[in-house]
């Protein structure tokens, strides 16, 4: 158990190191930082002085350690385009993305699980077949197209929901939230559905498959023989046992939700980190790209690590094989 955990943590550190290396190489060698920061009239001497000041003349290995040290203190340098500290810009936009991701995950779970249970229990009903067909379409349609269709229906035709921005936000300390105002909540609806639809179909299909499997097991038969009510069997016994993989997948998908937020944020002009990253790609603003990569990398590695460790805690079989390896 302990050996498995230590090995897993060391692996994560290596992955994080590689991500940091890539970010650093991007930061240092793609485009010249000095050229981006100075004007045309700067003399070569001034450039050289700036170079020295930024530490660009140090040995590369020292620069790399400097970069890691800075990253650990959330210092990712200054944006080429906006001339502002990158960390500050990301911090301003993080609440928007995190709220959007959270709401879409809640949407995916609240709709996906009941649909999965229903299609698993009544596999031949017309409604089940309808849900499954819809889910196939949901997987095939690209995220941005779903977003545009939703905008067209609900914002252009029906004019009931806003199609861009966050609505009114309330500042609580450093966190600006859209969850406390009506317009903020309304603005969240369409983006959350767009972002969560793929996860929803995934969860639905997963719950359905698990339910089909669980309903065939002996303990369900035994529960029926004991004369328990249908509700108690379906939800108390069957659903409970399907939830472990569902939680795992939801956890693992959290990273992709944040990445796919790039697309959703573009469609809905949502002022989050994804949109910031996209603009940095379009404008070759390397410090933002590098910082975003580090941040997402860290998030992914942490999520994977936590899910793996949770699995070990929950499932004794992995614990045994972890020791024997």
């Amino acid at each position, binding site marked *: 158990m302990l050996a498995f955990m230590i090995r897993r943590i060391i692996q994560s550190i290596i992955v994080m190191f590689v991500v940091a290396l890539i970010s650093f190489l991007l930061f240092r060698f793609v485009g010249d930082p000095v050229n981006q920061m100075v004007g045309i009239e700067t003399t070569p001497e001034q450039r050289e002085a700036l170079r020295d000041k930024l530490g660009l003349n140090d040995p590369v290995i020292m620069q790399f350690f400097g970069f890691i040290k800075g990253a650990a203190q959330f210092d990712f340098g200054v944006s080429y385009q906006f001339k502002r500290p990158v960390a500050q810009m990301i911090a301003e936009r993080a609440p928007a993305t995190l709220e959007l991701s959270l709401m879409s995950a809640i949407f995916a779970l609240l709709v996906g699980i009941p649909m999965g249970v229903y299609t698993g229990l009544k596999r031949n009903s017309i409604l089940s077949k309808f849900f499954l067909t819809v889910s196939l379409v949901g997987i095939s349609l690209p995220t941005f197209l779903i977003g545009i269709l939703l905008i067209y229906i609900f914002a252009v035709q029906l004019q009931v929901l806003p199609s861009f921005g966050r609505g009114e936000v309330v500042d609580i300390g450093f966190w600006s939230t859209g969850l406390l105002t009506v317009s903020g909540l309304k603005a969240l609806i369409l983006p959350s559905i767009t972002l969560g639809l793929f996860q929803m179909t995934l969860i639905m299909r997963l719950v359905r498959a698990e339910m089909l499997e669980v309903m065939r097991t002996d303990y369900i038969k035994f529960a029926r023989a004991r004369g328990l009510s249908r509700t108690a069997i379906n939800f108390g016994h069957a659903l409970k046992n399907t939830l472990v993989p569902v939680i795992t997948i939801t956890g693992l998908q959290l990273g992709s939700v944040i990445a796919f937020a*790039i697309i959703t944020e573009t469609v809905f002009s949502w002022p989050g980190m994804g949109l910031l990253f996209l603009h940095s790609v379009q404008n070759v603003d390397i410090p933002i790209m590098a910082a975003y990569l580090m941040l997402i990398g860290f998030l992914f590695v942490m999520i994977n690590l936590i899910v793996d460790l949770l699995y070990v805690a929950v499932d004794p079989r992995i614990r045994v094989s972890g020791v024997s390896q």
Partner: protein
Amino acid sequence: MEDKNIKEETNWFARAIDSDIFYSFTRSKLVMVAAFVTFAYFFIALFAPILATQNPFDLGSLDLMDGLTPPAWQEGGSSKFLIGTDDQGRDLLSAIMYGSRISLAVGFTSVFCAALLGISLGLISGYFGGFIDTLIMRIADIQLTFPSILIALLIDGTVSALFPEVRREDSAFWVLVLAISLSFWVQYARTVRSSVLVEKEREYVQAAKLIGLRPFIIMLRHVLPNVLGPVLVIATINLALAIITEATLSFLGVGIPVTQPSLGTLIRIGQDFLFSGEWWITIFPGVALAIIVLSVNLVGDWLRDALNPKLR
């Protein structure tokens, strides 16, 4: 007995008709429709210059006065532009044909490159094992933790930062292919590696080694043909994914530029006009994209089941 006679003089075509795969093909109407749509689409894309009424990439032939014409059945529509025009006066139907051509070309090329890279690395990894295997698989693991769209975006940004002097119109296609294929190779490498690990213990590989063939020849001529089945399935499903990724990148504004719009670019152009009532610029390319992706996905799903003997 007549059956037997027919079978004896079979050529490859008759054998294909007679195979299990073709049988399972004829069993599902949905798959037949999907396959028909897919091929019809390939045909239209391939012969777009002949079929289309206008060349949407030739800016000289476009007339701004024709801009934003609605579809023919709506008021103000013209029979010259069956499903309307975009803001530049491009006939949308022609633009969709040419756009699909680009989308499919990017899709096919990047799937081919990804498969080539993945298969080579998978073969090397599985056949030689040891350090090189560990190295390749660790890189694959790390890459797999990140979603492909993010990797494609990063590669796109890096390339345009490294070569700022290259004009966007000329480079966009290959930048997209590079970005998509570099983000898709992992699946091939993993699948091929695991098949190679099984195959290399078989007698025929041992025999080939015994008669002194070089590893390169064994891998290419003996092992590779036996691991291609799953690769074909991945490639089909990947084609749909590659088309989606291309459309997404173009929609995000880092893909094909507006002078030679692909489906994603057309949707991007149209999004600005959605609110002023010009819905057709977005909706028709969107529908075209959805149809092609859905058809390819259905064919891929069927192929996966049909090639898997356990499910028969």
